[in-house]
């Protein structure tokens, strides 16, 4: 019996709230991912595009969101992970990661997932399908 087998449709995993976003978080992600788009690290470049300041890489938020499922890799792996980028994440924003079980069948669990900011506004939204390996 695995840890998620008891979860009912409509129930959620425990939310994870991240520490406020720092510039260093984004510099680290730029280095680790190879995405050096300066809009994520250099204020002037973000301002040129009419933004109040740098914004997080959408993929940084998407990468973070997947950690809701990392504790369950002994039973499942992420087969499908689809995301729509809905809003921008700025420095000092507080992002909360959420997953709700939407569908189950014998080998798969489908979750609705999203990350919201401190104003409870969706910043990314999508779906994760866990499959037994």
């Amino acid at each position, binding site marked *: 019996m695995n840890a998620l087998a008891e979860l009912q449709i409509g129930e959620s995993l425990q939310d994870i709230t991240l520490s406020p976003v720092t510039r260093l978080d984004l510099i680290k992600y730029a280095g*680790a*991912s*190879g995405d050096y788009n300066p809009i994520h690290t250099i204020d002037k470049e973000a301002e040129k595009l009419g933004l109040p300041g740098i914004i997080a890489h959408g993929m*940084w938020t998407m*990468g973070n969101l997947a950690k809701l499922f990392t504790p369950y*890799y002994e039973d499942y*792996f992420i087969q499908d*992970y689809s995301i729509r980028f809905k809003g921008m994440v700025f420095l000092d924003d507080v992002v909360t990661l959420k997953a709700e079980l939407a569908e189950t069948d014998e080998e798969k669990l489908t979750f609705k997932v999203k990350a919201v900011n401190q104003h409870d506004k969706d910043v990314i939204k999508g779906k994760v399908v866990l499959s037994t390996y």
Partner: protein
Amino acid sequence: MFHDFIGKKSEKVKNVIERGAVKKFAEAIGDPHPLFVSEEYGKKSRFKQNIAPPTFPRALDYGEIEGMNLPNKGLIHGEQIYHYERPLFVGEEIYCSTEIKNYYERKGSSGELSFLVLTRRGEDNDGKTIFTEEQVVIITEAVKKELMV
């Protein structure tokens, strides 16, 4: 402006799923789970080795599509979809490529937006697919104008 590129592909590029790169990536997304970073933990896991986080393919090289010059500035990432046949293993060699799947333009309230749909693929040594990826990139009118100069 990218209509002619629909269907164009890059050559496959060999990538090694490097242990150090996976660790750095896992730390950067705040998820340094031992399944990703500890060799010993990986060996004892049901995978018998370490795996990479699902969004790690962001860090890989997919090669270039001839004549396609996208700026690294001013593009908006609209959508991102991963599909895995199995997890990506630390230490393995994979072959990655990219293709322009679609391109279309839409008029919106804030001017014309262009949508570029890219697919990416990672294969093992035998040409078996490990993962596929679809990315929707939005190009604003301002950026497009710059590109056409």
